[in-house]
C-alpha cells in the first residue's frame, strides 16, 4: 500500500512538472527554430513589411497552438466545461483557474519568439526600413522619392551592389536595430513586472478560493486518470475472460468431433488444442467469427 501511495504521489507531482517541462522544451525549441531559420528579407518596397511582420507574428501563433495541443489539461478543461451538469454541480472558478494556467503556459514560447526576434533586430529592420525619414540620413536625403523608397527597401540586404559599403545603410540599420532592441527589452521588462506582481499580489486576494480552485482542478485531473486506468484494467480482464470463454467453447467443439481426450497434466495450459489442424481452425474462427462482447 505504501509503495503504491509513493508511486502515485510521484505521478501527481509529476503532472505539473510534466507540463512545466513541456513549456520549457517549447521555449527552447522556439529559440532554436529562430537561430536555424534563414531569414532573408526580399528587399522590395511592398514585400518587406509583409515578410518582416509575418515572420514576427505567424510563428508565435503556431507555437501558441502547439502549447495548447501538447497540454493534456486543455482537454480535461474542455470536457469539464462542456459536460452536462448531471448529479455534479459545475464550479466556474475551477474552470477559470484551469483556463488561466493553460493559457499562461502556452504563452511562454510565443513571447520568447517575439522577444528574440526584437532583440535580434532583423525583422524590424526588414519591415520598417522603407518607413524611415530619409532626411535624417545623409546618403538618402537628396534623391527622388521613388528612388529613396527603393534604396531604403534595400537597406536590409548587405550584399546588394548598391548597398555594399554604404555608410548610410549602416546608419539606418543601426538606428532601426536600436529601436528594435529597446522595444524588445521594454516588452521583457513589462512582462517580468507583470509576472512578479501576479505572484506577489495573488495571495493577498481571496487566497482561500484559490486553494479550493487549485485542489478541485487537481482532483478532476486525477479522477480522469484513475478512470482511464480503471477502464484499462477492466478491458484487460474483460479480454482475458472473453478469450478464456472462446477457448472453452472451442474445446467443447473439439471434444464433440474427436475422440481423443487430452491428458490431465498439460491439458489445462493447452486448453484441449493439441495439433496443427485444431490450432488452424481456432485461428480461423478467431478471425471470421469473433466472440460477442458478453462474458456474463
Amino acid at each position, binding site marked *: 500500500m505504501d509503495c503504491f501511495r509513493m508511486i502515485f504521489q510521484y505521478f501527481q507531482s509529476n503532472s505539473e512538472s510534466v507540463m512545466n517541462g513541456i513549456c520549457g522544451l517549447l521555449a527552447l525549441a522556439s529559440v532554436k527554430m529562430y537561430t536555424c531559420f534563414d531569414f532573408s528579407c526580399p528587399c522590395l518596397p511592398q514585400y518587406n513589411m509583409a515578410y518582416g511582420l509575418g515572420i514576427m507574428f505567424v510563428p508565435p501563433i503556431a507555437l501558441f497552438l502547439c502549447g495548447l495541443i501538447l497540454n493534456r489539461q486543455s482537454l480535461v478543461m474542455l470536457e469539464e466545461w462542456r459536460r452536462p451538469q448531471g448529479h455534479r454541480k459545475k464550479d466556474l472558478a475551477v474552470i477559470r483557474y484551469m483556463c488561466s494556467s493553460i493559457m499562461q503556459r502556452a504563452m511562454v514560447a510565443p513571447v520568447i519568439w517575439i522577444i528574440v526576434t526584437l532583440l535580434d533586430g532583423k525583422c524590424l529592420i526588414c519591415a520598417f526600413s522603407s518607413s524611415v525619414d530619409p532626411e535624417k540620413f545623409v546618403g538618402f536625403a537628396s534623391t527622388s522619392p521613388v528612388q529613396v523608397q527603393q534604396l531604403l527597401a534595400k537597406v536590409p540586404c548587405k550584399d546588394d551592389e548598391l548597398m555594399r559599403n554604404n555608410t548610410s545603410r549602416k546608419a539606418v540599420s543601426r538606428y532601426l536595430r536600436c529601436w528594435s532592441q529597446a522595444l524588445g527589452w521594454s516588452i521583457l521588462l513589462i512582462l517580468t513586472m507583470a509576472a512578479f506582481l501576479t505572484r506577489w499580489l495573488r495571495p493577498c486576494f481571496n487566497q482561500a478560493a484559490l486553494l479550493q480552485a487549485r485542489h478541485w482542478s487537481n*482532483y478532476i485531473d486525477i479522477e480522469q486518470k*484513475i478512470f482511464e486506468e480503471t477502464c484499462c484494467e477492466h478491458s484487460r480482464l474483460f479480454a482475458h475472460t472473453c478469450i478464456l470463454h472462446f477457448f472453452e467453447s472451442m474445446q467443447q467443439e473439439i471434444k464433440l468431433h474427436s475422440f481423443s481426450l487430452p491428458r490431465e497434466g498439460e491439458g489445462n495450459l493447452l486448453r484441449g488444442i493439441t495439433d496443427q489442424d485444431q490450432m488452424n481452425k481456432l485461428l480461423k474462427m478467431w478471425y471470421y467469427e469473433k466472440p460477442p462482447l458478453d462474458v456474463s
Partner: protein
Amino acid sequence: MDKFRMIFQFLQSNQESFMNGICGIMALASAQMYSAFDFSCPCLPHYNLAYGLGILLVPPFILFLLGFVLNNNISMLAEEWRRPQGQRGKDRAVLRYMFCSMAQRAMIAPAVWVSVTLLDGKCITCAFCTSVPVETLGNANHPSLSQREMKQVLARIPCKEIYDGQELIANEVAIRYLRCISQALGWCFVLLMTTLVFLVRSLRPCFTQAAFLKSRYWSHYIDIERKLFDETCAEHARSFAKVCIQQFFEGMSTDLVAVHCHPPRKAPADAGEATEKLLGITDQGTMNMALKSWHRCKPPLHLHPPALPSGNGWAAEGQPPTHTPVHRRETAAYYSRV
C-alpha cells in the same frame, strides 16, 4: 513512517540546494545572454546615452525580478504575510528572514550582468563617447566644428567603420580611454560586492545568532508544512477519486440489475476474483452505457460510507465531504459479491 521522514529530509535540504541551483543557472544564463546579445550602438548623439545606460541597467532589473518570480517561496511569503492571525501568531522576524534570503539570491544574476558589462566596456564606450575630454586627448583646436557637429562626430566613436573624426581625436585613443574607465569601474564594483558579501557573512554571527537560528528554523518549517499539506491534499484527492469511481461502477451495475429485472448468473467459484474486478460490467452494451453515463452524468462528489472497500481507512474517519446528496435507490437488487 521512516521512509516519509527520509523523503522529507531530502526535500528540505533539497529546497535550499534547488534554489541555489536556480541562482547559479541564472548567473550563467545572464553571462551567456550578454555574449549572445548583439550590442550595436546607434552612434547618434542623444540615442547613445539612452541605449548604453539602458543595456547596463534594464536587464539587471529584469533578472532581479525574474529571480523573485522563479522562487517558489515568494507566494509562501506573501501568504504568510497576509493570512489572518487565527490561532497562530505571526513572527515578523521570520518574514524578514525569508525576504532577505530571497533578495540575496535574486541579486546574484544582476550583479553578474553589471560586472560583465562593465568589464567588457562596450556599454560605457557607447554611452559616454560624447563626453570624452577632447582637450586632453585630441585636438581641441580643430577648426570649423560647432558644438553640435562635434557631438555628432564624437557619437560615432564606437562605430569604427563610419567614424570620420580622426583629426579631432583618434578613434583608438578614445576607445582605449573609455574602456579603461569602464574596466576600472567594473573591478571596483566586483570588489565592492565581494566585500559586502564577506562582511555580511562574517559579521552576522556576531550579532543575533540565536534569533537568526530561530527565524531560519521556522521559515523552513512553514515551507515544509505547506508542502506536506499539498501532498496530503493530493493523496486525499486520489483516494477520493478511487472510491468515487468504484461507487460509480457499482451504482451502474445496480441500476442495470434493477432495469433488467433478472439476477446475473452465479459466477463459478474459480473466476470469483476476476468477476469482482470486472465491477459487474460484463458486456459491451453495459460498458457503453457506463462510458456515456460518465460523461453525461458524473457522480456527485459525495461518497457513501458503508460501501468503502477494506484497503482504505476513510469509512472509519468521519464524515465524507458534503456536496449534493445522492438519492439512495430502494430496490431489492441481487448481485453477487464473491
